[in-house]
C-alpha cells in the first residue's frame, strides 16, 4: 500500500504569509507525528496525534503554529505569519499504534520563507 505522503513537496513563501502543510498517513495508522528539520540540525519533534486528538501541544515552536487532524486521517500543519526562521523541512510520520520504532516517515515538505 501507499506510504505516508506530504504536500506540497516544496513551498516558497514570503515572510508574513500563512502556509498550510498537508500529511496523508498510512491508512489505518492511528498515531501521527510532525517533526521539523532545520538545515544542519536533527529532527525536532513538534506534535503528535492519537486519533484526532493532540494531547500535548507544547512542542510547537510558537503560537503561530497549529495543527489539526480529521477523520483519523489527514493532518494539516498551519504556520501563520511565517518568519525566516520557519524555513525547514517539515516531516510527518505515522504509526499503527503509539510506538517508538514503528514510525513511518513521509518525504517531507521543504519550506523556504524569503
Amino acid at each position: 500500500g501507499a506510504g505516508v505522503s506530504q504536500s506540497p513537496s516544496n513551498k516558497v513563501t514570503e515572510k508574513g504569509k500563512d502556509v498550510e502543510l498537508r500529511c496523508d498517513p498510512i491508512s489505518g495508522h492511528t498515531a501521527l507525528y510532525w517533526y521539523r528539520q532545520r538545515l544542519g540540525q536533527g529532527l525536532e519533534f513538534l506534535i503528535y496525534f492519537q486519533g484526532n486528538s493532540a494531547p500535548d501541544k507544547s512542542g510547537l515552536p510558537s503560537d503561530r503554529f497549529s495543527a489539526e487532524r480529521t477523520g483519523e486521517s489527514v493532518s494539516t500543519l498551519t504556520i501563520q505569519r511565517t518568519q525566516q526562521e520557519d524555513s525547514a523541512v517539515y516531516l510527518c510520520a505515522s504509526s499503527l499504534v503509539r510506538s517508538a520504532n514503528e514510525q513511518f516517515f513521509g518525504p517531507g515538505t521543504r519550506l523556504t520563507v524569503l
Partner: protein
Amino acid sequence: DQQVKQNSPSLSVQEGRISILNCDYTNSMFDYFLWYKKYPAEGPTFLISISSIKDKNEDGRFTVFLNKSAKHLSLHIVPSQPGDSAVYFCAASGSMYSGGGADGLTFGKGTHLIIQP
C-alpha cells in the same frame, strides 16, 4: 542543549569494511534507542532499535551496541556496501510504547556515511 549527540557530521568508509557510527545521550530517562537511515529527498526509514535492558541487538549486517553507564550507543555495519551511503540518525525515546510520549523521538543531527568503492 542537545540531548542526543552525533559528533561526527560525516564518515567515509571503504566498501567491504566496517562502518561504526557513534551516538551519545545525556538524558538518563531515555530507555529506548533507534537508528534511522535517510536518503536525499526521502523521509527517514527505521533501521534498528535497542531497549535499555539489552546491550546488543543484531539484524543482518547491522548491530547496535548500547553502553548505559557511558550513555553511548553505536551502530556497526559490516560489510559496508555502496547502498549504505546515507545520513544516519540516532534517536531516543522515554519508552518503547509511548513514541516518546508527548516529546516524540529525540534525534541527533545525523552522520553522513559515505561508502567508497
